């Protein structure tokens, strides 16, 4: 187990190294990043001064070295619009994005797992057909549009929730519903097929022939096994949630990390964008590491080498 964790962390470090290269070169896609950063009214001398101040006149390798040695200590440079450290800004917004993603994930799981299991147990029943139709609809629907529809119905018409912003728990309901149902649509299909797969296994026949009750067979034997692929997918789905949060946060003006990215792009605050992208990747990689480690807990058959 310890060796496995060490090797997984090693892989993680390599992946993060490549992410750092991506983040470094991303802002240099159009050549010198100073062309993005410099305010339009700057004259040539001012631009040149700015370029030197940011070190963009140095050789690329040296620039990367400076970037990465600072990045590992969490220093992504100063935000240009807020006059504070970019990473500090990111950290300040992180909590709200994790809160939103976490609540959405819980909503998604609570809806998707029971519906997926029931769909599999009552295959081709009206319930199964309805659930899979809703799942198709939920995956085809752009998430941010669902958010706009929720605003029209529940905020504008019914006035149950605030239209925008972060105003306690009430502001969380609509964005979390929006992301959570989107995730439920993806997850319910997966749960259904994983459950169908589990129901087909030999141990199910054995369990039934031992005379165990149907509910015990279904829950203890089938569901527990069906959950393994579901948990794997959960890791990827949380990545989808983090991505979805970027645009859903913009729709609801939820002041999280996603909204910070969009705000920073509009004011060309590229150090903040870099730090945020870095955090998105790190969160995703950490989530999937945890998911992999969870395997051995749910499925004793998985022997980690």
């Amino acid at each position, binding site marked *: 187990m310890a060796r496995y964790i060490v090797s997984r962390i090693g892989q993680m470090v390599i992946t993060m190294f490549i992410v750092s290269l991506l983040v470094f070169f991303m*802002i240099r*896609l159009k050549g010198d990043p100073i062309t993005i950063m410099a305010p339009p009214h700057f004259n040539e001398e001012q631009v040149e001064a700015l370029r030197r101040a940011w070190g963009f006149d140095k050789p690329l390798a040296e620039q990367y070295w400076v970037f990465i040695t600072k990045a590992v200590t969490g220093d992504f440079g100063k935000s240009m619009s807020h006059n504070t450290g970019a990473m500090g800004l990111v950290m300040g917004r992180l909590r709200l994005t994790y809160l939103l993603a976490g609540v959405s994930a819980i909503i998604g799981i609570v809806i998707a797992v029971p519906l997926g299991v029931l769909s599999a147990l009552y295959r081709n029943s009206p319930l199964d057909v309805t659930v899979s139709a809703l799942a198709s609809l939920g995956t085809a629907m752009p998430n941010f549009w669902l958010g706009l529809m929720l605003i029209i119905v529940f905020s*504008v018409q019914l006035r149950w929730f605030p239209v925008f912003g972060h105003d306690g728990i009430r502001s969380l309901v609509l964005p979390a519903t929006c992301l959570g149902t989107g995730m439920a649509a993806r997850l319910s299909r997966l749960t259904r097929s994983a459950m169908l797969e589990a129901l087909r296994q030999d141990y199910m026949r054995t369990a039934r022939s031992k005379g165990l009750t149907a509910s015990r067979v279904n829950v203890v034997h089938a569901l527990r096994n069906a959950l393994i692929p579901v948990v794997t997918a959960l890791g990827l789905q949380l990545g989808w949630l983090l991505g979805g949060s970027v645009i859903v946060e913009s*729709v609801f003006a939820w002041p999280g990390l996603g909204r910070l990215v969009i705000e920073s*792009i509009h004011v060309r605050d590229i150090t903040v964008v870099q730090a945020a992208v870095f955090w998105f990747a790190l969160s995703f990689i950490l989530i999937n590491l945890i998911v992999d480690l969870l395997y051995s807990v749910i499925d004793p058959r998985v022997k980690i080498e």
Partner: protein
Amino acid sequence: MSTIFDRLRGRRLTGVGTIGLIIVSLVVILAIIGPYISPHDAIQHNLKARYAPLGYTDPEHGTYWLGTDQLGRDILSRIIAGCRVSVIVSIFAVFIAGSIGVSYGLIAGFVGGWLDQVMMRIADALLSIPFIVLVVAISGVVGAGIVTLILILGFTGWVTYARVTRGEVLVAKELDYVIAATVVGQSKVRIMFQHILPNVMSSAVVLAALQVGVTIIAESSLSFLGLGVQPPSVTWGLMLADGRASIGSAWWMTTFPGIAITIVVLGVVFLGDWMRDVLDPRLRGE
């Protein structure tokens, strides 16, 4: 490629597949002839009919079946006009992403060894950044516009193809006739293109069909955020951005473009699912 179409041609469409085909054909037709048959000019302002509700009839301009927006432009005509951007962006972006991804996966899987390891680590790193975050950040740096958007979506969307293709190549490499071709002494390049590539193409085509939906949503998301297609081009994402600004007063501005996107993506997915069942039943359930 021709064999793929041959295999599709002989198969009967399922009910859902037919719906998908009808929707997709309709969108493509509208993308081509839309401006000639739409009831109004999609970008013409009519300041006397701003925020006109559904079915409002203007004595000069006729009826606005789905209402108008903040500048009095006809929503229905704009939805029809929006088909063009969606079709163009999704076709080109998917083609670029597919070409890069299939080549990448083909090389990684076929060459194997350390090159495969390095290439797949790079792919993993790209996947660890949520797609929309990556695309938003890059378009923020590179700028907006249709061509840029196609390039960005194309050059970031290839990773899924690469992973699927690589997996297929690893299987195909062990097939008897590929081993036979090696034994006979055929060149590696020839084996790669003549024997392995045809084996992996059907998965790639199925994936491409399904990715069209993802791309349409990505395009509308970016345009909605103001980072994609720019006015005066007409896109569903921009319409939704306009709608959001008037969300308290004109629900139709937001509702109908979103329905259009949902229907089109559903159509694409239905068609893609049918293609998958015919070409590549193993992918089912993924």
